[in-house]
């Protein structure tokens, strides 16, 4: 109980004092996660929409279970896979992305992508199947049908964004393996928490956890505001 109480006090203290190491860690956390999220959205939303909208997709019997499986990938396994690929002995070792934020972004994008694709696909499939017909009758091109349908499914698509964001900002296995938790270079909130726990600094680790949750909450609050605002339009 004492540790928990101290953690809240520590968390507030750290933020209040704008501890530079903490600021650095928070900034890197946001950088890596948000870049990975954006890449996953740019690729994943169109792919998910396409799969959801295409009535007779060849190989659907295989593709959909693969996507669902991808949604449950253990982050540490993704991290290991990315590590092996980016390692000196791996196929993409020449990029030099191992133990850098770039490598961490790759790993987190891989984790986020199936979530975005799968949930967007489900959201689009939830739209009334008669809608595309009505839109075509009103003169929509195929691309316009897709974008109108995506907009109709915006609540579900936003949920996809939120789910992907939640998954990657809180994961530790992949960024630890691929990033290496190097102070000042690849240390993010989750790996810092592991480190402080290992050091026995439980209160500090808890404080970092509280900060991480607050970060997640603030961003999700913003996402939800966006959802509500869109609903009224």
């Amino acid at each position, binding site marked *: 109980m004492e540790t928990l109480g101290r953690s809240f006090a520590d968390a507030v203290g750290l933020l209040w004092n704008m501890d530079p190491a903490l600021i650095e860690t928070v900034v890197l956390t946001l950088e890596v996660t948000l870049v990975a999220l954006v890449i996953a959205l740019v690729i994943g939303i169109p792919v998910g929409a396409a799969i959801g909208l295409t009535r007779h997709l060849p190989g659907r019997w295989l593709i959909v279970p693969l996507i669902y499986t991808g949604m449950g990938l253990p982050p540490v396994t993704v991290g290991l896979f990315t590590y092996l690929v980016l390692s000196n002995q791996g196929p993409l070792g020449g990029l030099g992305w191992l133990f850098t934020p770039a490598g961490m972004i790759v790993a987190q994008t891989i984790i986020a992508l199936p979530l975005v694709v799968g949930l967007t696909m489900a959201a689009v499939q939830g739209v009334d199947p008669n809608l595309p017909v009505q839109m075509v009758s009103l003169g929509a091109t195929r691309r316009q049908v897709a974008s109108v349908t995506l907009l109709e499914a915006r609540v579900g698509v936003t949920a996809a964004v939120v789910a992907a964001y939640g998954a990657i900002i809180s994961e530790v296995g992949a960024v630890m393996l691929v990033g290496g938790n190097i102070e000042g270079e690849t240390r993010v909130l989750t790996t810092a928490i592991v*480190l402080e726990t*290992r*050091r026995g600094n439980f209160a500090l680790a808890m404080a970092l956890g509280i900060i991480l949750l607050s970060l997640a909450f603030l961003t999700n609050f913003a996402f939800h505001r966006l959802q509500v605002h869109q609903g009224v339009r």
Partner: protein
Amino acid sequence: MAAVEREEHASIASTASAYPLILLLIVVMLLAVSCAGKTSDGERVLRLATTTSTNDSGLLDALLPSFESEYNARVDVVAVGTGQAIALGEAGDADVILVHARAREEAFVAEGHGTARSDVMFNDFVIVGPTDDPASITGIPLASDALASIAATEATFASRGDDSGTHSKELSLWDAAGMSSDPDAGWYKSLGQGMGSTLNYSNEVGAYTLTDRGTFLAQGDSLQNLRVMVGGASIDDNADPSLLNPYGVIPVNPDKGGIDAELADRFVEWLTSIETQEQIEIFGIESFGQPLFYPDSMAWRNR
């Protein structure tokens, strides 16, 4: 119409009566899972908190079965960083701790967290580095001199950065070289990770690092890029006394509650006994051509 309604009612009723059954099933599953953790035949459990490097060496895997069968006990080894292992002891979440951080061990006992400290064994640290040796430290007898050279050439150095025993040793060596380790220098990488990961990193990018010999030997095959630079080919050849690393075992103070003090004391007795010490003496010779640890309990010294 009535028939359909009756059908609906029947199916709802059967679903409703299924709930207690489902609840029972869940309770049974939970019990089964929790029972899986329990011991059989009145087996006792000893919670041992130790460091990752000790565990990674494989020594405990080799030694513990004899303790477990002799005392009909099961040893749950929690391998974490030195700081965390000590914290577990302080919280009473472990019955006995086995670490290698002398000053902190003595403080642990002085503050009343542990009953008494006993010598167990020691091993040594070495500095390993990339085969091309940019800082030219191969064969330098003293570690602090080697570190000075690394700093001068600004060769990449990987630190565990996690307040572990190894990390503490590393910091004391920088101290001895007359410099403070500076994480802001681009060539000094503070990883905040265990020994295995730090070695992987060093192997990958070609960095120098301080490691206990045991972990380095145990991981040998996957570290093609690294060689021992300071510390010699075996502990006999290690010319730097500051690279020696003594281990201590401390039973946790039973005043904390929930401690199996009797079993902890038996464990210390067993670990420091001549029989076990002999096992420690030969561990590693078969796999690596050299022992990884040197027995050093009081009983051993007095034999």
